């Protein structure tokens, strides 16, 4: 099975250029096999290289407890809780906001590109960063093959990014989105919690999977905010990939996300995102 759920007419149309897409964050991640000893032996010299471009070291700390549910009852997992520390670096703007982030767990390398309406980064910026760092990372940690890639885009629909679609403090979602709104029955509005996730297999070889998630942002209390996330994960064949192969997969994943963006948002919304 190849591409499914595609609206042929939409795909035939030339790709639109968006001047102010509602994107908040783009994340590109690659995985490789690095054992702990090799990683820790080489991490400090890697950090020294990285901090020339990403000067702010802000490790991410997670105190994790495992809870599982059985018959609706939450139970502590028998596994011991653990502390996880992920090395994280940031490049910030003059006003102190994080623009670019790099995360270096033991088995992967991730780039986070943060976007706001007044700063127009794009995929090309993210791609440039992966292109520059991926071969260095593979060389430094002796990563022979990339075993997985993931590209994730988080779009934020709120009064700032979708101004014309806010009426009386409510987001007129039917004017923004074409999917995941039709719910059976009569009701006045969608309210939190609102969360729809779907995963589709894009292709079998290489195995690539696309996940949509449209959900109300429960962290935001002052304004209605809906997140529209797209993620494409690709597992290369057994032999894995070199750096060039991985970069080509990012291009593929980006194209798949753009296709879905075209299909999920309404024409009215896309016109707004592409206007000055």
């Amino acid at each position, binding site marked *: 099975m190849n591409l499914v759920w595609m609206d042929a007419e939409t795909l035939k149309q030339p790709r639109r250029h968006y001047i102010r897409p509602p994107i908040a964050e783009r994340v590109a991640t690659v995985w490789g096999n690095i054992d*702990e*000893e090799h990683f*820790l*032996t*080489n*991490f*400090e*010299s890697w950090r020294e290289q990285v901090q020339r471009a990403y000067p702010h070291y802000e*490790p991410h*700390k997670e*105190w*994790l407890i495992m809870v599982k549910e059985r018959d609706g009852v939450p139970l502590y997992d028998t596994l*011991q*809780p*653990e*502390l*996880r*520390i992920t090395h994280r670096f940031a490049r910030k703007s003059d006003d102190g906001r994080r623009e670019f982030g790099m995360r270096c767990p033991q088995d992967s390398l991730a780039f986070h590109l943060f976007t706001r309406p007044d700063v127009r980064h794009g995929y090309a910026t993210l791609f440039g960063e992966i292109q520059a760092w991926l071969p260095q990372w593979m060389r430094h940690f002796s990563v022979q093959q990339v075993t997985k890639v993931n590209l994730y885009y988080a779009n934020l629909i709120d009064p700032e990014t979708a101004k014309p679609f806010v*009426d009386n*403090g*409510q*987001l*007129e*979602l*039917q004017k923004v989105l074409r999917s995941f*709104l*039709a*719910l059976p029955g009569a009701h*006045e*509005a*969608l*309210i*939190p*919690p*609102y969360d729809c996730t779907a995963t589709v297999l894009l292709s079998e070889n290489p195995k690539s999977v696309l996940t949509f998630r449209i959900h*109300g942002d429960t962290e*935001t*209390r*002052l*304004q*209605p*905010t*809906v997140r529209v996330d797209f993620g494409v994960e690709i597992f290369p064949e057994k032999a894995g990939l070199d750096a060039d192969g991985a970069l080509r997969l990012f291009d593929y994943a980006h194209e798949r996300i753009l296709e879905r963006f075209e299909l999920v948002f309404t024409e009215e919304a896309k016109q707004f995102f592409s206007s000055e």
Partner: protein
Amino acid sequence: MTYSAADRPDTQIDFRQEVARGLRSQLVARQEPAKVERPRYMFRQRYVPIEGGRLLLRLTAFPQLEVDPATMEFEAVNWGVRLPCSKAEELPKMLARRFLDLFSKADAEMLSTEEEACWLKVLDQVDFTAFCIDRAAPHYLEGTLLQLEPICRVEWHDGVRQKLDGSVACTLQSLYPGDRFGAYVKLGRDNVVRFIERLVLLPSV
């Protein structure tokens, strides 16, 4: 279909707080409350980098961290290292410092009674033999190259013959079989040669 955040019902009610407000009667404890156990977390890291990763301290078990909810500090069990939870990223550095501190004092026979007890516990949690081998300086050795291809073999001054691995053998590429040489040799566990440096040619006997 609209989406509203302003008028939505508050789904995050703190039920405990509501109950506390509702109950005005005095609560009398019949017995002393059980001592709340301090939660333990595991730090899933087997190696502690020392000297920027050039030297690794190998742990025999993942460090256990005991969190004190009253102070929001945690202690690495049996290490005598205490840190605020907000500074958890400094744990590997503090473990390395603690080990070096105790190791240096033990070497100089300056451990206090308390430190000595802690040092014994720390030794139970690290591969001390590997640490000593890893940090040992290279020794000056003399030997003769027996053959380079297909397998590199040398005979050391004490008559011991040894095969050398590829990366180590590269150091001897400029020698011919039969050449006598001197070099600083770093040995690993079971006297395996890890690297050879500062090579000199010696006159044949």
